[in-house]
């Protein structure tokens, strides 16, 4: 063991909350290396990162930093050792300026008064060094786009001594230009000998930046590979423990008549002249980078945000449906299952029963007003059983269910409403892998029953597995559509980046 050449070495690390999250994890990092940590949600990536950064303590195991025992008791202790973490969730205070955010905790002062000139100069110098000079140091952070806020946060992390940098899903909120900027940064840091732990579930990114990839699954290290040479499929199999082929849709499935047509839909900068159609029995995927306009397109179709222009036509006719609110959309048989289930989909403290019956409550009510409790219970129990929702009873609050089961509850609501067109926005976000496969099967099932399904996802492999066709959005435009068999990861990614090159300069709104 050449402990001297490792920047960080982790042995036998274990951690349990209610259930074990990490078991006997070993991991190492060289100076000047980018080591990617990948795995499904709940695989333990973030927990491992938090332990290294001192935010959480392990139950068992040792860590060595530069060959010496390392057991940080808190974030401050870790930072004294030069270990810094930039987390997924933003940690900024919106009303502070960029410069203040970067130097918070050690703002240059003179007898208690802020030395604005020095603060500004220091910030400017740092931003220039990081090639972030597009961001003015005096702007309040809240006026920046999310992506730029993330860059500011990274800059704040780099403004102090840093030997080991941990980035937890840094690109989740970034546009293509910003991602490029970040990667250039990482290369420069790497050359100066900083070791970087890079957490992501976007495999396509890893090849571009990482030297090695370690795969975690269910809290265990499955293996470590060289990023350049390992086939992507191997990594996926390591991540999910089985082949995606299980749920793969057969090519050339026959679909029914057109169920929904979207023509020239536009809304602000995020949805520009989007046209497509989806047929009964078809699963149509929407791929694209963060901020490409996928979610906004779904919301505009559903009337959740009023579009500026364009028409939505239900069926294969020519008459546009008048959709001015979600209520209108639902009446036309369109349902939207939002990306953010907890905030926009579920009524967390209310029972499963109420969550399922809500969209079609009047059908359960005598004279359209008087709810018949027995019928409501029977109907909702039947639906919960049909979708294999795991709950103690339909009276259990949905807040107590797991992510996958919560998603099934939302699906049950729309099945009961008898919607023909189901728009799924990131249906498997935050759901563990077993439940993901359940959801994939459910989507295939729904399509087989003649529903028209539109799915957006950041996970290309997911779309490749379940879709009949994939539309790619970039910079608000629908730039390409691929049929099953026509698509490759390269083609889709090229299309996804096409609208950003030269165009979107990453300037915040």
């Amino acid at each position: 063991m050449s402990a001297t050449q490792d920047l960080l070495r982790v042995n036998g690390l274990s951690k349990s909350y209610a259930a074990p999250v990490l078991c006997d994890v070993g991991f190492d990092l060289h100076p000047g290396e980018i080591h990617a940590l990948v795995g499904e949600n709940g695989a333990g990536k973030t927990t491992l990162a938090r332990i290294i950064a001192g935010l959480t303590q392990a139950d068992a195991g040792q860590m060595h930093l530069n060959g010496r025992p390392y057991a940080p008791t808190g974030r401050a202790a870790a930072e004294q050792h030069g270990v810094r973490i930039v987390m997924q969730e933003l940690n900024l205070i919106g009303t502070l300026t960029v410069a203040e955010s970067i130097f918070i905790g050690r703002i240059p002062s003179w007898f208690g008064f802020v030395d604005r000139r020095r603060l500004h100069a220091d910030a400017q110098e740092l931003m220039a060094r990081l090639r972030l000079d597009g961001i003015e140091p005096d702007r309040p952070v809240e006026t920046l786009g999310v992506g730029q806020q993330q860059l500011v946060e990274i800059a704040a992390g780099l403004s102090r001594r840093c030997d080991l940098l941990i980035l937890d899903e840094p690109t989740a909120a970034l546009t293509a230009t910003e991602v490029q900027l970040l990667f250039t940064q990482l290369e420069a840091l790497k050359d100066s000998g900083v070791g970087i732990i890079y957490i992501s579930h976007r495999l396509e990114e890893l090849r571009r930046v990482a030297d090695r990839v370690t795969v975690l699954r269910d809290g265990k290290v499955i293996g470590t590979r060289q990023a350049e040479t390992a086939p992507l499929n191997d990594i996926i199999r390591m991540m999910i423990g089985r082949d995606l082929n299980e749920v793969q849709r057969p090519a050339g499935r026959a679909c029914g008549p057109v169920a929904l047509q979207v023509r020239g839909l536009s809304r602000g900068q995020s949805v520009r002249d989007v046209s497509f159609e989806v047929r009964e029995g078809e699963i149509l995927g929407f791929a694209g980078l963060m901020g490409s306009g996928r979610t906004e397109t779904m919301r505009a179709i559903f009337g959740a945000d009023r579009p500026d222009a364009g028409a939505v036509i239900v069926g294969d006719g020519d008459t546009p449906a008048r959709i001015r609110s979600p209520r209108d959309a639902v009446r036309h048989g369109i349902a939207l299952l939002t990306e953010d289930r907890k905030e926009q989909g579920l009524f967390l403290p209310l029972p499963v029963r109420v969550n399922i019956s809500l969209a079609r409550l009047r059908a359960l009510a005598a004279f359209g007003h008087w709810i018949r409790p027995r019928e409501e219970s029977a109907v909702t129990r039947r639906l919960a059983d049909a979708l294999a929702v795991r709950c103690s009873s339909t009276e259990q609050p949905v807040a107590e269910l797991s992510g996958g089961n919560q998603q099934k509850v939302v699906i049950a609501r729309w099945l009961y409403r008898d919607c023909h067109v189901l728009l799924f926005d990131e249906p498997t976000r935050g759901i563990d892998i077993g439940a993901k496969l359940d959801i994939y099967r459910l989507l295939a099932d729904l399509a087989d029953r003649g529903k028209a399904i539109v799915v957006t996802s950041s996970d290309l492999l997911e779309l490749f597995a379940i879709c009949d066709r994939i539309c790619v959005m970039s910079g608000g435009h629908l730039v390409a559509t691929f049929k099953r068999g026509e698509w490759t990861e390269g083609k889709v990614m090229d299309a996804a980046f096409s609208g950003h090159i030269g165009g979107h300069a990453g300037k915040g709104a």
Partner: protein
Amino acid sequence: MTEYVGMVFVVASLIAIFSLTAPNFFQVETFRMTANQIPEVIILAVGMTYVLIVAGIDLSVGSVLALSSAVLGVCLVRYQLPLPVAVAASLGAGLACGAVNGSLTVAWRLPSFIVTLAMLQAARGLTHIVTGQQTQYFRPMIRELTSISVLGLSLPFLIAVAIAVLGQIVLCRTVFGRYMVAIGTNEEAARLSGIDPRRIKLVVFTLCGLLAAVAALAQSTRLGSATPTAGTGFELEVIAAVVIGGTSLMGGRGTVIRSVFGVIIIAILGRGLIQLGAADPTKQLITGCVIVAAVIVDHYRHSFRKAPLPTETPSPSL
């Protein structure tokens, strides 16, 4: 039913404590008197419960009550209109105030706190203008109403109980009631489920205004007059009662029956303290403590259920 056990227990203990400590407390007359004093607060509590459930608040109920009662008085006294017309005008005034509250809240997405705070001022001002700052005496004109009673319980009390029962049934058994709870729990999710929250909220605020007018009628029947300063501070008394009943100011949670218990608890407390010879300041001090205690108890009652799982733990259920 189990959710009311606690409230019944509190009421029973209060009665027990005052019966043991205050002379002449445990008498039919005490309860009759207390009951006949609270109909307007019960009626207002029904409306307020609804408003709080949809995550709003209505600070204007006291002023709207005064305005409705002023309209009743002026119609009867100054214009000598027949009683049914005067009642209709009074109800109309309350309904209109509620509709304005609802429309402003919904149309401009203003916080209902601000809108109803403005209404609190405006309706009070209007009351003074309408009455010319004069108390309107109309006891002779409503004599037939004041004389109705069952077992010594006045007509207003019986109506208030009926409204509370109806309010509870609407809340827990109708589509409208379910929509209110859904909107109060998560308005955006309700909207995306195809419910129009604006329509429901408009109805709720309008209803609250209408119920303030009904409360005004109840109070006028009892007092036989309309004072421009009637109902001052009622909004806080009503909100206190509803909160003691366990309704959440954050919306989505509450029942009418529990709010009525809240009203009863405050009323018995007040009556008992009077009979003990406590002065008003002492009464206020104790009522304040009860409100805080009720909210703390409620907090614990609910925190047992929702212990959120740590987000990073892989879900054990799949």
